[in-house]
């Protein structure tokens, strides 16, 4: 299957999920918590005309206050820890958090050191982990779909008030 076909099929599934839960679109704020920039290259790729994730209802927003989901990359460096927490606290509930990339998942090659926090879930609750170094754009879309399923579960268990 070509990349175009792959994206089309996944995108349509994603689109219907987003429509079901969010009505219109899923707003994502990306937070780089010390990544090497590899993950940002792939998140940006999702906005190019070949993937064009806006057509599936995914919207990257400029402020956490407009976001449904935080897409966090990097192992959470000591110097970014506070900024991540502030961003998390500025995001309205219910928040979805996706940890994108090997270092966001568990620190990756940077480990858990004086400067590297060893993964996003040590600082904020994470709903889905998207492995890869960096994850391909298809993997990011797949991860976002899993996160939306989680929100569905949260709502049905009445963990959050909608």
């Amino acid at each position, binding site marked *: 299957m070509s990349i175009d076909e792959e994206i089309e099929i996944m995108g349509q599934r994603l689109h219907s999920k987003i429509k079901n839960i969010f009505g219109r679109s899923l707003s994502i704020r990306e937070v780089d918590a010390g990544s090497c920039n590899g993950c940002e*290259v792939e998140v940006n790729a999702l*906005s190019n005309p070949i993937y064009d994730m806006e057509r599936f209802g995914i919207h990257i927003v400029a402020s956490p206050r407009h976001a449904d989901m935080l897409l966090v990359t990097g192992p959470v460096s000591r110097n970014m820890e506070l900024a991540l927490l502030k961003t998390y606290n500025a995001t309205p509930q219910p928040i979805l958090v996706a940890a994108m990339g090997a270092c966001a998942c568990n620190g990756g090659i940077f480990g858990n050191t004086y400067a590297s926090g060893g993964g996003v879930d040590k600082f904020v609750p994470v709903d889905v982990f998207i492995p890869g170094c960096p994850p391909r754009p298809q993997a990011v879309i797949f991860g976002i779909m899993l996160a939306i399923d989680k929100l569905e579960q949260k709502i049905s268990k009445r963990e959050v008030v909608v």
Partner: protein
Amino acid sequence: MKEELDTTHIMDPVQIIRKEFASQIISETVSNNEVYFSVKKDSVVEICNYIYSHLDGQLITMFATDQRKTDGYFTVKYVFSMEGIDKFIIIQIEIEAEKTQFRSITHKIPAANWYEREIQDMFGLVPKRHPDPRRLVMFEDWPEDQYPLRKDFDINSKPPRVEGTYDYKKVEGEGIYEIAVGPVHAGVIEPGHFRFSVAGEPIINLEIRHFYTHKGIEKQFENISIDKAVFLAERVSGDNSVAHAVAFCQAIEKIASVDIPKCAKYVRTVLLELERLYNHVSDIGGIATDVGFAVGSAHAGILKEKLMQLNEHVTGSRLLRGMVMIGGVRRDVKDISDLSTRLSLLEQEFRDLIDFLIETPSLVDRIETTGIIHNDIARALHVVGPTGRASGIDYDVRRNHPYAAYPQINFDVPVRNDEDVYARTVVRSDEVLQSFSIIQQALQLLESIADADMIVDVGDIPSGCALGYTEAPRGETIYWVMMGDGKIERCKLRDPSYCNWPAIEYAVLDNIVPDFPLINKSFSLSYSGNDM
């Protein structure tokens, strides 16, 4: 083959230094193209300044090492690249364990500014009379007596946060106000803090505060095996993976006195240029994005994606990772003629794109005379890469200090003198065309020696130190590695962004705030590579 530079009329700078400073030089070591002068501590300002102002030496990196355990002292090393010859002069001083001070050279050589502050934070060695001795890498909440790169600092320790302040420069006057941006930005980019002082629209002052993504990479190098270290080098600056990995491997191969197979050199060259292609196309597209020219940006986005898919086709990784290894490369490049045809098609697409962009007056209007960085400032700060070349600095590591297959390949180094965003865009576009040609030449060379070895066994790495260097898409990338007992004792890395960030503070002056993203994009700098 390129013409050899005629250097017969110039006296060898190494001999000049020997003669001029005979009484101050304690010892001298030569290995490959690196000459190490151990000098008396008090003469360092004079010698460095002489190399900088009389011999046209550029300070390309500067760092400290902690050798207290073996030798009883710290060292500080100043690495100079010499104009016109493929040599590096390294001046080093010893600092006794209990005297943690050395003389600052920043007032003579502005490029030393961040290096000295970094040494202060990471080693606790204080540059005396530094004009701006604030914290750089470690923030104000880092305790006073902890120095991460000292050997007795445990990498896994987590010192508590302490109270502290960081003072930004204040610009005062009627109607002047501050705009603070970051570290979390509105777009999908890396974190950093920019503080503008503006009077209406024009920028009066910009202060950049970085190192938010400091991950302790140099310390991590000392704590992992040498094979894993290549993976770490690939992840210093995500989109310059090959340039970092090759620079690191070259340093190790130099220490081990290993010459890698020809085939591996050709493959490395192909990878290095594929990396330049997708980065430069992305940066050129970014210029279109930042002036709000959506059509141009979309076209560039498509071309970049095609290049990244080509990367994946050739190497299995969209960011070309996992190919470079110590001693060579992991795999051959398959289907050379197919790859060559694909590249020719992409080259044509690129030519169409650049014609389209450069013929659009609304784009050119925004980028001409915007974000000028004058040649003298660029030289003083040692601005590298396309940004330096757009300000008239005719320096490219591929030509000045050749490595991989570049000595066998014909290429030009585009240089311009208009110093603005336009110049940087055109330099990048000219470099893209050169890259296409370099890859085609390297593929031909590769085809001529099919089925040869891709890697040579390096064996145990002996103790010693060496420089590795590449011309990354962003410019000169330097690694200095010291090995001891088969382990990495010290790995100093310097991403091109480290040199270029301070230059932005000058480039934005008198420009309007909305042009800042454009100027920033035209520099195209890495935060992660800078912060390490």
